[in-house]
C-alpha cells in the first residue's frame, strides 16, 4: 500500500467514523451514563429536525420507560431493550407503510476537496467537524453545568444521588431526549453521505452499542474515539478485503472484543454497571 493510498484510507475512515462516533456519543449519554437504550439507528432513517426528536424521545421515555425505572438502571436494561426494540419495529413498519419509497438519498452539498493525490469528501469533513463541535458542547454541558453534574452524579452513585434529591426519572428523561436528538442529527448527516432505507437501523445501532460497551461508561471522549477508530478500521479493512467483508469483520471484531472484556476496556471488573 503506497503512502498516498494509506493516508487516503485513513482520512476517509476517520470521516466515516464521524458518523459512528455521533451515534455512539448519543448512546453513551444514555447507555453509558445511565444504562438506557434507544433504537438510535432506526431514527437515522428519519430526516427531521433534532429538536422534534428530542421531544419525541422525551415523550417516549415518559410514556413507556419511566414506569419501569423503579430500581437501579441495571435491572432496567433488559425491559428497556425489549420495549425500544418493539418501538423500532413499529417505526420501521410505519415508515414503510406511510412512505412509499423504500430508499432515499440526497445529492452531495459540499464539493470534494482535492489535495495532491488525496481526495476528501466535503460532506464527511463537515460531519466530522460538526461532530467534534457537538462533543465539545456536550462535554462542557456534562462537566460545567448543574444539569450535567446531576447526570454524572447519578451515573456514579445512583442511590447517593437520589438521596440528595436528584430525580432519577427527570434526569434520565433529559439524557434520553438528548440522545434521541443526537441520533436524529446523525441521521441528517447520514442521508447526505449514503442512501437510507427504513431497514437501516439495526446494524448501525449494534455497532454504536458495542462501541459504548467497550469504551466503558461515564465518558464521552472514549465513545468518540471508539467511533472514529471503528470507521478508520472499517475503511482500512475494506481496501484489501472488499466492503462486504469489512462489515463482517468489524462486527466480528467488536463481538470478539466484547467477549474478551465484557466489563469494557477501561473499567476494572468491580466497577462495571452494564449488564
Amino acid at each position, binding site marked *: 500500500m503506497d503512502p498516498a493510498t494509506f493516508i487516503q484510507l485513513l482520512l476517509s475512515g476517520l470521516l466515516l467514523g464521524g458518523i459512528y462516533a455521533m451515534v455512539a456519543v448519543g448512546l453513551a449519554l444514555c447507555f453509558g451514563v445511565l444504562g438506557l437504550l434507544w433504537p438510535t439507528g432506526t431514527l437515522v432513517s428519519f430526516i427531521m429536525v433534532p429538536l422534534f426528536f428530542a421531544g419525541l424521545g422525551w415523550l417516549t421515555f415518559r410514556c413507556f420507560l419511566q414506569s419501569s425505572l*423503579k430500581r437501579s438502571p441495571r435491572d432496567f436494561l433488559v*425491559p428497556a431493550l425489549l420495549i425500544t426494540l418493539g418501538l423500532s419495529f413499529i417505526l420501521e413498519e410505519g415508515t414503510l407503510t406511510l412512505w412509499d419509497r423504500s430508499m432515499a438519498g440526497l445529492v452531495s452539498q459540499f464539493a470534494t476537496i482535492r489535495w495532491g493525490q488525496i481526495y476528501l469528501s466535503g460532506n464527511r469533513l463537515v460531519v466530522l467537524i460538526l461532530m467534534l463541535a457537538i462533543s465539545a458542547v456536550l462535554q462542557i454541558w456534562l462537566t460545567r453545568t448543574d444539569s450535567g453534574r446531576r447526570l454524572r452524579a447519578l451515573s456514579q452513585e445512583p442511590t447517593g444521588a437520589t438521596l440528595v434529591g436528584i430525580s432519577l426519572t427527570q434526569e434520565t428523561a433529559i439524557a434520553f431526549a438528548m440522545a434521541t436528538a443526537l441520533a436524529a442529527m446523525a441521521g441528517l448527516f447520514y442521508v447526505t453521505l449514503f442512501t437510507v432505507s427504513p431497514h437501516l437501523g439495526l446494524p448501525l445501532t449494534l455497532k454504536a452499542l458495542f462501541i459504548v460497551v467497550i469504551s466503558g461508561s461515564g465518558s464521552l471522549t472514549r465513545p468518540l474515539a471508539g467511533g472514529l477508530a471503528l470507521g478508520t478500521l472499517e475503511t482500512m479493512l475494506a481496501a484489501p478485503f472488499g466492503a462486504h467483508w469489512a462489515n463482517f469483520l468489524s462486527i466480528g471484531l467488536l463481538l470478539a472484543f466484547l467477549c474478551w472484556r465484557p466489563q469494557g476496556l477501561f473499567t476494572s471488573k468491580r466497577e462495571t454497571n452494564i449488564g
Partner: protein
Amino acid sequence: MAYLSIKTSKLKRSSLLLIPLAALILLLYLVPNLWGSYARILLFTILLYVTLAVSYDVVGGLLGYLYLGHGLFFGLGAYITALALKHGQPLPLALLLGASLVFPVAAFLSLPLFRLHGAVFALATLGLLLLGGQLASNLPDLTGGAAGLSLPPNTNPMLTYSLALLLTLAAVLMHWLLCSSSLGLQLNSIQENEDMAESIGINCIKAKRLALIISAIPAAMAGGLHAREISFVIPAEAFGLENSLAPLLMCLLFRPGTTWGPLLGALTLSTAQELIWTTVPSFRLSLYGILLIFIGMQRAKRQA
C-alpha cells in the same frame, strides 16, 4: 448421566395422557390427506413454530436469558441441509448432518457468549445473527450469495410434513422431560440467582452451555425442514431477525420456563400471524412491536 435423571413418577402419572395424545398425533398426520395442501402447509408452519418456541424456551425461559440468536442456528441448519440436499443426499440424512454440524458451532460459541449477561448478552447474540447473514451473502460460491440457493423441487411433501411432526414431538417431549430433570432445575436456579447457584456447587458455565446446545439443535433441524419445504434459502430470510423474534415472543407471551407456555404461545401467535397475513399484511411487524413493548413492560413491573 446425573444431568438427565428424571423422576419416574412424572412419567407414570402422565401415562393416562398417552391415549388422547396418540389420537392427536394420528389426526395431525391425517390432516393433509383430509383437507389438502393448504392445511398441510399451515400445520407445517405451526409445527415449526412450536419446535422453535419450545427449543427457545430452554435458554429464554428455563435459563431466563434474553436471547436473540435462535435465528442463527435456524439459518445455519437451513443452509447446511440445503447444501446436503443439493448434493443429492436424502432429507433425513441432510437434517442429521445439519444438526451434527450445528452442535460444535453452538458448543464453541457458547463459551465466549456466556461471559456476558443481561442486555449485552442479548445484543451479542443479535450480532451473531447479523454475522451469520453476512457470512451467507459473502460466500457466493458456496451459498449462492445474496441471491440465495434454489433446491430441486420437493417431490415428497408428506415426508417433510411427517418429519416436522416427529421433530415437534421430540422437541416438546425433550422440553417436558428437561423441566423436571436435574439440568432443568439447575438452569432455573441460575435464573433465580447465579452467584448463589454457583456457591451451592452448580457448574453454571457447563449448565448454560448445555442449555444453548440443547436449544440450538432443534432450531437447526427446523431450519432444514423449512428449507426443504420452500425449496429455497436466502440469507435475508434464513438469518432474518424474525426467526429469533418470533420464538422469543411465543415463549415470553404466556409462561416462559414451562412446556405449555411456549406451546400455547406458538399456537396463538402463528394463528394470529396467518390471520394478519391474509387480512392486513402490513401490520405484522407492528404486532411484533406491540407484543415486545407489552412483554418489556410486564418484565419491568415484575422486577420492580
